[in-house]
């Protein structure tokens, strides 16, 4: 096993709960809103 394969094999694996959250419609609607607000904040902050 090379270094890359070893590193990947030791990476944290998402739990079932995390995977569910990543595809949960209500939770992802909230994340969608949050991420877009964050993007707009960055536009305001950095794009002058």
């Amino acid at each position, binding site marked *: 096993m090379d270094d*890359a394969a070893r590193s990947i094999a030791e*990476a944290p694996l998402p739990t079932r709960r995390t995977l569910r959250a990543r595809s949960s419609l209500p939770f992802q609607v909230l994340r969608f809103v949050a*991420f877009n607000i964050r993007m707009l904040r960055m*536009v305001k902050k950095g*794009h002058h």
Partner: protein
Amino acid sequence: MARVVILGAGISGHTAALHLKRRLKRAHEVIVVSPNADWNWIPSNIWVGVGRMTTQQVTFPLRPIYRRKGIDFRQARAAAIRPEGDGDSDSGSVDIAYTDPVRLGEEERLTYDFLINATGPKLNFAATPGLGPDGNSLSVCTAKHAEQTAAAFDKVVEALQRGERQTLVVGVGHGACTCEGAAFEYTFNVENELRARGVRELADVVYLTNEYDLGDFGVGGMSFAQNGFVTSSKMWTESLFRERNVRAILQAHVERVDPGVIHYEQLDGTKGSLEFDFAMLLPPFRGADLKAYDRQGGDITADLFAPNGFLKVDADYAAKPFEDWKAEDWPRTYQCPLYRNVFGVGIAFAPPHPISRPRSSPDGTVISPAPPRTGMPSGVMGRVVAHSIADRIERGETAPLQTASMASMGAACIASAGAGMRTGSAAAMTMYPIVPDTARFPVSGRSLKETTGEIGLGAHWTKLLLHYLFIYKAKGRPGWFLIPE
């Protein structure tokens, strides 16, 4: 009446043209020179490459938009810049050769008062023997390439359906490539599509990259504050590779692509080869093949352009070790220091140095990513240069130039990891600033508050939203200028 000539109609050139015309109205002339008749939202090409979108969904013809806006469009390739003019005129000029089928073969010399070089990259497939659609690998750099790649992908899926094992390699085709983010996206879209078509089990998906670590993305990786810890994009990316069972070959320079076999060298000097059934490898970029001449016709290309063909602007190009790189090295106005009415934006400007730490193999082969200049900063550069030029036309030469350094600009990168309104996924990253500034942010060079990463369906919706928003904006529809770059 002033004349502004823009070379290139990609994200930065097209953005500059729309903003300039909005500011200058009919009082001044804006000419766009581009060899392509269509505009392409390149970030969505990865979806064309797996058959989830068509070419028509990611492109549209430029001519009707420019006609509506009063922008003069020349479908032509720029061949040479004459910033001092020629024997007949003191005005700077550009030599163009028409690619427009109606005027094919015609050449013309266009004078300008201001010039914006937004020619984007030359896809340098020739840097690696056998690389590219004319060789032995595939690409998603243009919509046409992506369409060919989708057809090849369908054949691989058919082979898998017949029960034949297949190896699919996605990555970069040279040690000095950029756009690792796009390769990453395409990898996980391929993986997602294989699962969606029920043929994942017999497929070996391999990501082949010049990055030192996964999650580098050509920006030296990122640090995130999550759950009370500072974690790295490396761990976060490796986690996705583990979850999706994708193999990775890191620190690789592709030396040659033979039919069905990739030959590569790694940073420690070892050589390897990898057999494949399907290989999408991005090419390295270099500047467009533009020459520059002085008033007497002497060749001044090396004065205006860096050796990689990108236009030198107001950056600090002095060679210095990685430890001495500073945020201030990066350009702020994108003005050419030799000719003050010439600007370079988007991929066409020469970065002062990479962002990731430079590395080379014992044989001296450079194996580290070149700095990415993604859509968001490219659009911002196009806008600020358009406003700088409009200010100078309206208020005179003393009007201050507007600024937008990549060291004070943030970026959002949405790396798709699979399409589908209910089943899609993407890695959504924000970083501030793009170029690390350790003087302001000692821990990682970037703000831990503004540099974030998360994976989920919502990020896929954001990527899809940006697809429709930016095509709307690029079409110059009502209120287009309210959509930020």
